[in-house]
């Protein structure tokens, strides 16, 4: 794969707003990935990410404590302390990197951390082997162009 892969297409997993404005992504399996990765692996990844985000945005005892403590210090405490959300985001970044290394890169795919896309989409880049003929999927005719 080294020095021979080129970007063929990108798939964007959209947000799932059915439960409100909390961060959650759709687990619907995109057709472009059908030939590239097993459905269960993909769904597992998205579900784990959703669980991480739910943990970050949970409103409960710990978030109240953090909020009240921060308010009492006029939010100056955030200059030295990391918020719970930031801690979870670090965990997410690590998880995505791990998933990319173990599962997605061997299949010619790459997941971009949603935070780099404004938490709007999970961008999955599909790479093609240079030597292979044809395009990766039917819908890539407009947006994909590979450098030769």
């Amino acid at each position, binding site marked *: 794969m080294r020095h021979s892969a*080129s970007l063929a297409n990108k798939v964007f997993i959209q947000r799932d707003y059915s439960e*409100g*404005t909390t961060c959650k992504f759709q687990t619907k399996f995109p057709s472009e990935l059908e030939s590239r990765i097993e459905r269960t692996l993909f769904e597992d990844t998205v579900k784990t990410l959703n669980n991480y985000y739910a943990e970050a945005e949970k409103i409960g005892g710990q978030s109240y404590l953090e909020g009240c403590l921060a*308010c009492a210090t*006029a939010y100056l405490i955030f200059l030295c302390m990391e918020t719970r959300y930031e801690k979870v985001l670090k965990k997410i970044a690590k998880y995505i990197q791990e998933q990319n290394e173990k599962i997605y890169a061997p299949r010619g795919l790459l997941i971009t951390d949603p935070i780099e896309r404004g938490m*709007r989409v999970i961008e999955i880049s599909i790479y093609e082997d240079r030597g292979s003929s044809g395009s990766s999927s039917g819908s890539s005719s407009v947006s994909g162009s590979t*450098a030769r």
Partner: protein
Amino acid sequence: MSAVMITRKVRKWEKLPGKNTFCCDGRVMMARQKGVFYLTLFLIIGTCSLFFAFECPYLAVHLSPAIPVFAALLFLFVMAMLLRTSFSDPGVLPRALPEEATFIEMEIEAANGNVPAGQRPPPRIRNVQINNQIVKLKYCYTCKIFRPPRASHCSICDNCVDRFDHHCPWVGNCVGKRNYRYFYLFTLSLSLLTIYIFTFDIVHVVMRSVDNGFLNTLKETPGTVLEVLVCFFTLWSVVGLTGFHTYLISLNQTTNEDIKGSWSGKNRVQNPYSHKNIIKNCCEVLCGPTYPSVLDRRGLMQDDSLVSATCAAPSSSSSSNATPQTTKTTAPLIPNEHTPDDAKPSIAASAEKSPSPKEELPPASKLPPLASPETDAETSIAKDKTH
């Protein structure tokens, strides 16, 4: 002609579209017009200085030294909240990169099917169901995204802001998801400070008048008159504003939704975000998690964009570059509006992680034009009305 290229580290805030100004190398983010914000600062600092100069010495001696101490703490809290509201990212949603914009375009075209020539294409709306309510997500022609629920585009800052409340000229920034609680605490603490100063001004004048007479008191402490005037007029507006926002918080609504009457109850639409419990609503808004900024302002731009960035426009450190494509929404959207510079960093970023791929961006001419002028005009008129 030989060109000497001085490459320097360009931070992402310098290339952000939108009409914000940035200070302290991207740490501070505000709107462009800051005049009213300076007025706010002047009024607060000025009035408090007069209070500490004229009233406090007398009250500390004759009543209690706790009075100036408490006033100082309250003043510091007000300033901290004001600066936090003004300088932080309200929850700006970054614009879609070209690939994402194209992907959305393709989805829209697939959903609309074939529109006969000469007919206006249907408005770009996506329906989602939230808590058994149908909520319409509108498409933002400037940012090229479907706005998440409760997000709105601020025409003053030219950004889509998540959970957009309103653009406040007094704090010189938009009020959105990330800084709403600071804004609320600012108005609340300012109300308390105003009431506090007003009360102790009256107490001070009364106490002194008993000894020296009313007119003599005013001559000895001329600052009191000014303070009382400022506090009197501030009181009505700030206390009213605090009350209004307390009402909104208890219903989990934004100012924007209230003005537009989104959940006013006609057509049986109810607010799907409300927990139907005042305490729960207040807790969610004020004690919810602190959301991170999704605008990576201080990140470094990738190297291959540095060359073109430094060639194209050396940016000044205190203002964001208005790149040519931040056009008004009335302009028909052309695919090559986003220069390759914007897209290259994202490709390069993902390229770093994957085994060195070599790719090019699709030439702009291949892509279909994104929108018709008529639909753009409609949207811009609607936007002007709401903002």
